Every structure is written in C-alpha cells, then in structure tokens.
C-alpha cells in the first residue's frame, strides 16, 4: 500500500520544516567558513596545504556535525511521543517497522547532508585560502593529501553513524529526546577516556568494547591498533553493535503499547 518513499518524504518534511533545523545547518555553514579563515590568519610561512586545513578544520566542526545529527536522531521518535502525534502516525495502514525505518532513513540522510556540507565548504574555503604545496608532516608516507583527507572524513563519518544509531535507539527506548541526546554525546566525548582506562593492551575483553573501535582514524597511520586489533576486526565489532542497536529499537518500537 502506497510507497515507502512517501513515508521518508513525510519524515523529511518534519525535519526541514522546522526553524531549528535551518539554524543548525546555518551554524554548521558559518563555522565551516570561519575556521579555515581563522587558520589563515594565524598561520605563517605559507606552508599549510589545502588538506591540512581541511583536516584541522573538520576536527573541530565534525563535533558540531555529530551533535546536530544526534539532536535530529534523538527527536525523531521521542518527538512524536512527546507531541502525541505518534497515535496518528501508527493508525495508518503501515507496519510499525516501516514507519521506524522511514524515520531512520531520514535521520541518516540528514547526517549525510551535514557531512557533505561540512566537507564541501571546508574544502572550498581551504582551497581559496591555502596554496602551500609542502609535504605535510601529518601525512603518512605514500599517501596523497586528498586521499588521506577523504579517508579521514570517512572514518569521522563512521564514528558519527554509530553515535547516531545509539541516539536513535535511546530515543526509541526511552521516548525522551533530552536523555538520548545527553547519553549519546556523553559516549562521544568519553570514549577516549574509556579506551585509555580499558585498553585492549591490558585487558583482552576490552577489544570487544564499542569505545575501542569507534575512532578508526588510527588505521590511517598504522595497520594495527592497540592490542593487535585490525581494521577488519574493528569493522566487524562495530557491525555487530550496530545491528544490536537497530534490533533493540525495532523490537521496542513494534511491541510498545502506546498509551498516554
């Protein structure tokens, strides 16, 4: 009945018809414009390449990108419950799984939009401001600046993608947007501490913790992570966590009794 695309269209409408969304996208654009400009002002010697600038800039702005995607993800399901519109949504001839999936798709689309916006603007502005062609100290041997940067951004996106899945799950389970945002961001900022405390070098079981694997940028410099874990292993662990998060969301959402 009907087509799934119209459900996604609905979810998109609910994201982009809100002033809040445009404020967030606006902030993202402005910050991505400003940070390379600030670099160009403090930088001296004309040594910085375009790609150095992009990586430095995105190491700031990707936080913003993640936070905004998490906010949208956290509100996707919890918002419907707090507005009471969930009742109108679930009495249409669509299974709950499809409604949940349409919400998730719209959230992922938003996170892609943010990331592409971030990458596009910072590459554009950096290429206007910087022209240094020197070999960068940040680059591992034998990689071009562009390839390294794109891989770096891809690793950042994987990190964001998992964080968003966590926020989406928490939003579905607790039906409280604030809690979902808070916990997801808590995980984002503390995963470094967790990795330090429970390093796979000290504890064998620590290599099955999600925190150990969320930041894949290490693999750009060396093929082996702490405790001898490999990229393939990291991806496998992330995939398992990801599937579990989505399965929990799906189970809770489709079984829940919707009451006031």
């Amino acid at each position, binding site marked *: 009945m*009907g087509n799934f695309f119209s*459900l996604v269209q609905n979810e998109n*409408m609910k994201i982009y018809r809100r002033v809040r969304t445009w404020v967030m996208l606006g902030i993202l654009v402005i910050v991505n414009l400003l940070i390379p400009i600030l670099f160009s002002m403090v930088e001296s010697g004309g040594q910085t390449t375009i790609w150095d600038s992009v990586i430095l800039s995105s190491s700031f702005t990707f936080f913003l990108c993640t936070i905004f995607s998490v906010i949208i993800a956290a509100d996707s399901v919890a918002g419907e419950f707090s*507005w009471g519109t969930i*009742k109108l949504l679930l*009495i*249409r*001839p669509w299974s709950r799984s499809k409604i949940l999936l349409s919400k998730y798709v719209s959230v992922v689309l938003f996170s892609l939009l943010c990331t592409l916006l971030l990458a596009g603007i910072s590459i554009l502005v950096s290429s206007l401001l910087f022209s240094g062609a020197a070999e960068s100290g940040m680059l591992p041997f034998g990689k071009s600046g562009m390839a390294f940067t794109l891989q770096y951004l891809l690793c950042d996106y994987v990190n964001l993608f998992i964080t968003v899945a966590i926020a989406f799950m928490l939003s579905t389970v607790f039906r409280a947007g604030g809690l979902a945002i808070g916990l997801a961001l808590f995980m984002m900022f503390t995963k470094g501490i967790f990795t330090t405390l429970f390093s796979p070098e000290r504890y064998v079981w620590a290599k099955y913790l999600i925190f150990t694997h969320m930041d894949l940028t290490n693999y750009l410099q060396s093929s082996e992570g702490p405790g001898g874990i490999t990229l393939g292993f990291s991806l496998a662990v992330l995939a398992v966590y990801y599937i579990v998060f989505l399965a929990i969301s799906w189970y809770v959402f489709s079984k829940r009794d*919707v009451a*006031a």
Partner: protein
Amino acid sequence: MQHEPVVRLEGVTKKVSSKTLVENVTLDIPPGQVFGFLGPNGAGKTTTIRMMVGLTSISQGDIKICGYSIKEHFEKAVSNVGAIVENPEMYKFLTGYQNLRHFARMMTGINDARIQEVVKLVGLNNRIHDKVKTYSLGMRQRLGVAQAILHRPKLLILDEPTNGLDPQGIRELRDYLRHLCHEEGTTVFVSSHLLSEMELMCDSVAIIQNGRLIDVRSLKDGSIEGQDAALETEFMVDEPVKALSILQGGTQQGSLITLKLNRDEVAEMNARLVQAGIKVYGIHTVTRSLEEQFLEMTGGDPIG
C-alpha cells in the same frame, strides 16, 4: 442485524501486569450508525479504542474490522479506520494543510481535490495555511476530524470528540457526524462520558464500567421497550387519595400519582378518574433520561 457488523469485538481482554483494564468485552457494531460508547472515567473506553486501532496489544480475544483481524491483518483492517484518539494532536510547526498532506501521503488515492473538499467540509478554509500552533482547540479538533475522514473510512472512531468544544462547535460536530453517517454511510463510534451529548448524537450506546460491558441499547424509535410496553405514567389530579383507590395501585407524591401503564390503559384510567369526578390536570409518561438510566446502572461505584 441484517448487515455484517463493521466492528466485531470478540471476548476482548486487556491486562497490564495484574490489573485487568478491559475484561471479556464482546460487541458488534452495526454499519451506518452513530454508536456511542459510554462509561465513567477510567472504565476502559480509551483502552478499548486503543486496541481497536492497534495502538495497544490485545491480551485475549480479537477485534475484527470489516472482517480483518487487527492482530493479523493490521494494515488491511486499519485502512478502513479513521480516528482521533484522545486530543487531536498535530504537528504544531506545520500548517494545517501540511499536516493533511502528511497524512494523505500515508494513504492511497487521496488527491489535492479531496484535501480541499475535506477542508471545506470542516470549515477551515480560511486558516488552513496557518501554522497549527496558532489554532484554537476547536480548530485543532476540526483538523483532527479532517485527517480522520480524508480517506473516506468505513469506520470513524472519535474518542471524547466534544472535549473542549463550545456549544456551537458541539452542535456542528453533531450535525456533521449525522451527515457522515446518513449521507455517506460511515459508521461512527464515539466515546464519551457526557450523557446528554450521547443522547442527542447516537443511535445506539454501549455502556462500559470497570472494564466490563454492562449494557447495549438502542436510543431511537421508542427504544427497546417498543410501542406497547408499560411505561411509568404520572397523573396530576386534585384528589390524589381518592384517585389512588380508583387506580388500584401506584404511588402518590403530592398531587402526583405514578404507575406503570401501557397506551390503552392510560386512556382507560383517565376515563375512570373523570367518571369519578376527579379533575385530571395532566398526564405524562416519565421518560428517564439516559443520564438517570446510566447513574442507576453504574450506581455510585468507585473508579477502579
């Protein structure tokens, strides 16, 4: 009933942990009626409605809408239903029209002309392109009705639809529901605790208390008691004591004498009184309002 019922509740029970909210309710709702669902607060009305639209799981029993089980064929069953469950909550940051577009996209075969038609029907033409957050409760109620009837459902379920409406709004809603029911053949299922309202609006009512169905009755065409049933009749006379002995029975209260009589007996008793020289100032049958019947049935039982 000669027609297949639109909704069939078969021994429906809802348990939440150890509490039974709805217990073994069996009810057929015939097509083309405004069917009232009456009960005090906490009787299980909303819980039953939530089960009918699949918002809440059914612990035991089944509900069939147009022959499809809401448990097994949810999508087919629910496509025959339009509903407002509790308050008509809409997306406040969207306009009324965008809200309707949103719900129209979730159904098949609703074009723009149909949306316009529905908007006109509920009288929101002037404000439909304003954001819902600027709407009054009455306007949101109208928008709620609009989204519920967009796809011309066979069954319209309204939970406490007159909540928060002014008398004018209530009247319009009532006329409108009657129109839907009688012109378009929609079956309307309305829950309420406002008895006088139900009496004006409904063809039949089911009464629920403490999760149990306690009565189903028709309200129109002389009700279930029929033409020739004995009704409570009051005689207003000048000499009640004398009249009492002539009438052989009944109860006296001031100048009123009350007894149960059918049509012919009323005429006969009147003749007797007049022959005995008693002045009869008035005769009328005591029709108990739904409210009195309801209170009588549900007693003063506490909620729970």
